[in-house]
Each structure stands twice: as C-alpha cells, then as structure tokens.
C-alpha cells in the first residue's frame, strides 16, 4: 500500500525539499500470464483496470500501452464534463461518469481538480433552441439538474459574451448544466494509474501490441514488442487505433479515425468561469486554472492517423469564438495539437463483447470521451469481470449496428462534446 497523499505528507516532504516523494506507480516487466490484459493506458483503460481491481477483486491484471500512459486523447482533450445528452442510454452512462467525478479525488486520493463550474450550451438559431428544449425535457425526465436560461442570464453568467441581437448568430438562450464543468485530464489518468498500481495492477508502458493469439474462437494471448503475454481476457481500449488492433483478431469495426484539434491561448486573468459551447458556429471555450483559454472545435472531415490537423478547421473554430467573444480577438495562441478520435456512425460509444470469446472492446467515444472516463471504466470492468454486458453498457453493444438500434447523438451532440 502506498503512503496516502495529504497535507501532512506535503509538509513532511517539504522539509526534505521534496526529494523523497515515492514514484506514483511502478514500471514492471510483463509477467508470462495475467487473468486479464487491458490494451491502452488512457483514461478509459486505466479506469477499467482500477475498477476491475477495486470492484471485482481482479488484481492479477495488466495494462499495456504502446507509448506512455495518458499520452493519447486523455492528454489532448478540452476536459469538459457534462451529462446532458438526449437519449436515455447516453444520459445513464454520462451521468454515472459525472457523478463519479464528484468525489473521484477522494476515492483515488489524487486531486483530479474536478471543477463543476457549469456548462452553458448556447442556442444561436431557432432550430437549436428547440432542439435543446427537447433535450431539456428528456433530461428533466431522467432527473438531471439542468435548465434552459434566457439571454439575460447568459450575459450574467458569461459577461464577455457578445449579446448583440443583430449579429449573424444571436444568443437566443442557452441550455445550462450547473454541475457540469472541467477536470484535470492528466491527473485523471495519473490518479487511476496510481490507484490501480497500488492494488497490484501492472502498468506496462512502451509495449505495443502486435498480434492477438486465438484458439478456436477464444483469446489465448497477446503478442507484444515485449514478448508474448498469455491471457484469457483482453479489453481493447485504444480509441483512434481500435480498428488496427481489432483487425488483428479479425473483427471489423464501425469506426472512422479522424483528427480533432484543440488549442490554448497565452495565460490571462480570469475572464470566464464556466464552459461555453457554441454548437452552431462550432467552438467551445473555458479557462484553465493557469489562465489559458482552452479552445476546441470540430474534427477534420477525413480519415487521419497523423495527430496533426489541418489549418482550415482551426481557423474555423477560432473565427467562431472571436465572433462569440470579441474580447479574445487579439489574444495569441500558445499551443495547438491534434488527437485521433474514433467516430461511430451514430456518434455513440461501443462497450461490447465481440464475436471472439474473451475479447472485449470499449471505443467509439469520438470527440467526447474524457467526460465519460469513470463511468466507462466502471461498466467495462463489470462487463469483463462477469463476461456479460453491464446493464448500462448493454445498449452500446456492437450488435446495435445490425439491429438498427442506434443511439443517435449526432444531432444532440453536434460538434461539441
């Protein structure tokens, strides 16, 4: 058991000039055999390992990662957390995740800086206004704490917003989730990694999967760049690279990998204390604790594995936000980056068993996976441990694509997640 982080451990280590902090997790060599192996040490994979160990007492497990943990989309998103989706299955899983975020820092003994600062989704056309009203009714039936707000209230919540009624896309109102917000994305990965590691889970970085060994339709092991690992259960949680991993087991996926970009401005004094999403003009913005404005938009429209987006997509996002927040027009942008997101046809995730026994897949989170990390890990761990879909995961099975049982969030979510 690791020593707990607390104000006392902070004071004690301050005495030693912070030279004696323990490593947060080990770097073990892979064992020959595990009860289960998770492929992909991003937020979702690490959360799955954490809940497998914590809720299902499966501690003889490993997480393998081709790069470093939290180095993919977990460290590349805009950290927005909300649960106000349209469809009941989506509400169930995103609200499970959001409610787990509420006390995740205490649970993990790691400050994930969950900040329920409120998420405001602007209505800038009549159509969008009515669509959000519909979502508001659906969410109220599901018991979510969300409400529509007037343009005057929007201006009160976000004073820097452009409230000119004569602009091209005037603010007609907004859909507000006061307990939505942001978190520290790296800390979520690190916290889950430390928690899982302390329960005995091996997190093996720089270990790329090169093959999935099968025997009579059953999984028997993984070939990796660090040798063969025998296991009867494999959970694939590799986001944009899920198609390439599943190809190794002969399972074709309803996924297209595209690049989603984000960027941050130079740090400035606090100007916005909530998350604003402007779906019609394609942009969303919040301010980090360091003072940088964190900005995201839509994906590039073609398949891409390069983690570099195109300039027009970025320009489109920034132009939209300058129109929405004229005050930012002269800010300089510090950094921009791209992540490879796994898009499904209905813009809902896949948490599923597969035609191969012992092979499970959790992917398709597309542009909105960060907010779902705790809930996704929770239900995927349960699915793997019990070899049947968790009730919340069940609607998200791969079979929905042949049964025509889509969970259509492409309208509700539009560009912004």
């Amino acid at each position, binding site marked *: 058991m690791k020593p707990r982080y607390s104000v006392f451990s902070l004071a004690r280590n301050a005495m030693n000039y912070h030279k004696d902090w323990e490593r947060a997790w080990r770097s073990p060599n892979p064992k020959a055999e595990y009860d289960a192996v998770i492929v992909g040490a991003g937020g979702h994979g690490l959360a799955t390992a954490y809940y497998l160990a914590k809720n299902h007492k499966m501690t003889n497990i490993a997480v393998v990662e081709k790069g470093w943990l939290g180095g993919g989309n977990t460290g590349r998103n805009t950290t927005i957390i909300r649960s106000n989706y349209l469809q009941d299955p989506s509400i169930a899983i995103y609200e499970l995740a959001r409610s787990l975020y509420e006390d995740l820092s205490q649970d993990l003994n790691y400050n994930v800086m969950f900040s329920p600062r409120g998420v405001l989704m602007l209505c800038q056309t009549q159509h969008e206004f009515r669509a959000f009203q519909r979502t508001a009714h659906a969410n109220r039936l599901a018991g979510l704490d969300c409400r529509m707000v007037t343009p005057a209230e929007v201006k009160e919540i976000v004073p820097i917003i452009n409230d000119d009624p004569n602009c091209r896309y005037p603010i007609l109102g907004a859909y507000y989730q006061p307990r939505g917000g942001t978190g520290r994305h790296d800390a979520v990965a690190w916290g889950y990694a430390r928690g899982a590691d302390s329960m005995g889970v091996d997190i093996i970085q720089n270990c790329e999967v090169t093959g999935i060994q099968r025997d009579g339709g059953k999984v028997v092991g993984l070939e990796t760049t660090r040798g063969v690992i025998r296991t009867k259960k494999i959970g694939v949680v590799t986001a944009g*690279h899920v*198609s*390439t991993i599943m190809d190794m087991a002969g399972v*074709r*996926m*309803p*996924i*297209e*990998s595209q690049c989603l970009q984000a960027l941050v401005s130079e740090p400035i004094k606090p100007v916005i204390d909530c998350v604003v999403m402007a779906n019609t003009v394609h942009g969303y913005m919040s301010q980090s604790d360091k003072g940088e404005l964190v900005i995201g938009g839509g994906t590039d*429209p*073609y*398949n*891409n*594995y*390069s983690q*570099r987006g*195109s*300039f*027009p997509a970025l320009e489109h996002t920034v132009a939209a936000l300058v129109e929405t927040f004229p005050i930012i027009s002269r800010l300089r942008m510090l950094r921009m980056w791209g992540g490879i997101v796994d898009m*499904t*046809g209905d813009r809902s995730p896949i948490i599923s068993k597969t035609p191969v026994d012992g092979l499970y897949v959790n992917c398709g989170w597309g542009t909105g996976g960060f907010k779902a990390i705790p809930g996704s890990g929770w239900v995927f761990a349960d699915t793997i441990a019990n070899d049947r879909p968790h009730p919340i995961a069940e609607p998200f099975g791969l079979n929905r*694509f*042949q*049964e*025509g049982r889509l969970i259509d969030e492409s309208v509700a979510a539009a560009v912004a997640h």
Partner: protein
Amino acid sequence: MLVVKCPVCGAEGDETDFHAAGQAHVRRPATYDPAHVTDEEQRDYLFIRHNPKGLHFERWRCDRGCGKWFHAARDTVTMEFKAFYGITELPPAELMAQAKGTWAEYFANRLKAESSKESGA
C-alpha cells in the same frame, strides 16, 4: 492542409474547395440482391469501415469547381495523395495490388466483370 486535384475538370485547390465523403468502393448489397440482404450485409454497407492506418481509398466532391464526385487514394499517416481517379474508374494497378479485405474483393470482382465483358464483345 491537403491540396486536392479534381480528375474531372482538373481544378486544383486546398481541401476547403472540396468535400471529403469517406470510404470509397463500398458495395451496396441491395443493388445486387435486393431480395436477400441480411442484417449483417446491411450493417457492413452502412457502418463497417476499413479505417486503415495507411492506404485509404475515398470519395471526394469538387465543391467549388465542376461539382462532380471523384475518387482518391491517400495515405492516412503521411496524408499524401497517391492518385485521383474518376467515380466509375478503378485506382492504378499498383495501388489495387496493395488493397486488402473487401477492397481487394471489390477490385477483383470489377476486373473480372470487365474482362469477361471485353471477351464477350
């Protein structure tokens, strides 16, 4: 930024002058066998995608030029276009040789159909 060239009108421009429309050469089962389309075939047609890390055959539209649809072959890692070709055409032979899975099947079927048509005529 991608630079795209329309094989129909010859217009060359950046990606904002064109519209990317996803995977090409997807066989619609109902066109060939409307009476016996299984749920799996319909799923494959609507949702299952190759999504390769590497050579990708895709459809584009010349939005601000002639308005025609056309095909392209592109590498999804280097983002380099390997070829542009017409909407009814097949990619260059050396690219077809690299195709896998249902793409390879599709190209083989098309080539077989075309050669039997020629020998029949």
